[in-house]
């Protein structure tokens, strides 16, 4: 019987970074621990890009679409609550 292989330090770090990126405990994504370090890193990069793109598109749409009258209000909301 093959013995389970404990993830290398690099893989463990990459998994921790992915969990951080996904804003979840590392135990939640433990089933993905079988992925290689470079695969986990690539995945994190893809998700980071998707998050940034999503956030950027939302913010642009908000600022472009906001009527002049509501702009001060939007500005305050963004300052206080935008992640």
């Amino acid at each position, binding site marked *: 019987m093959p013995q389970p292989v404990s993830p290398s330090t690099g893989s463990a770090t990459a998994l921790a970074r992915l969990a951080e990126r996904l804003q*979840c405990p590392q135990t939640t994504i433990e089933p993905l621990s079988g992925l290689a370090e470079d695969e986990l890193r690539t995945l994190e990069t893809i998700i980071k890009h998707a998050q940034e793109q999503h956030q950027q598109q939302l913010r642009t749409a908000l600022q472009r679409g*906001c009527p002049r009258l509501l702009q001060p209000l939007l500005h305050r909301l963004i300052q206080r609550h935008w992640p």
Partner: protein
Amino acid sequence: MSSLQARLELTKLARRLNISTQQLAALSSQPADNLRLLRRQSTLSLFHREHAFFHHLATILAPLPTPLLAALATRFGPRVTAQLAVALPSAYAAGLAARLSSELLAQTCLHLDPLRSRELIRHLDLSTLVRAACQLVDKHAFIELGQLADFLDDDAIQAVIAAIDDDRALLSIAYYMESRTRLDHIVQLMPRQRLERIVMNAADPANDQICEILALLSSVGYSLRSPLSALAADQPAQTLTQIILLSDRYQLWPELLPILTALNPERQRRLLALPVLLEQPSLLSHAIEAADQHGLWSSVLPLVPLMNNELVQTVAEQAARLPDAAIERAMTAALMGEQWQALAQVAQRLPADKQMLVRSIIVGYGAVDAELSERLQRLLQAYEIAR
């Protein structure tokens, strides 16, 4: 989990991350459960980051009359509208949706948070729902439509099915639905004639919907699977050959085998007599591997007595390559389903070492059930196995 489900999950994950499936090639060998987990976590991280912001914005905008809010939504566009819609009270958001143009409504659906839009979708009136569905069909947004279908009640489902006259689209929506039990229920709601037409069209490999139709037939309950599978199995031999070759290419044996089981013996015999199965032994090899990996020996064994000698011989040659543990699993299936005659037919064509393995397992049964072990040893003798 079959590779079909994993492939489905990979497609959905790629859509969620707005990339191509090729960019996720490193995940292609991951089980469907892992991909689903990753999709869920990605969805949470994508849609919930701005939750507090949109909650506050929705609180400020909620007192506005819906026509004014609809005008604002038109200015903001679909991404912002989608976030606002799930942050607003569902009934109010549904009123807003009813006032959006069909294009904006559909675009908004494409950007909805799937984990928080259930209540909103359930509050939409039928005409808004049908409008959104038809527009999404035009955009080939079948993943989103599948997600929508998961949330709809029976009346809404029937209205949407009636409004979508494209059978291929309907099958694609079913393919992407999350809940297989819900899918079974929805299929039961479909007019029988239409369902038959969908199966007949999709069973034609020229229409390139083999994955979709096998996923559907393997998901529905036996009462529907049997007659619908029969429709597909009554296609000309050339078509059936194509279905088998495509199923093999897309690794769809875990879906195909239970469908074969649902056919009557006459149809099963016809399929098993297709020359391609003898001409390309790798087909049977892949089918047997899939049966072992996916616990489908109980689907395969009843087919053996319907095979001609040549095909049983080919099955035995492929089975001989299996590890001993797989033979044990096949024997467990024979034990559970009383399929010993079928197993013996194959076993008598296995090499001597595998025959000895079969005998030793059967002798081992004696420790638990001496009568069974003796009966099976007599069967081995009758088939001249491991004499």
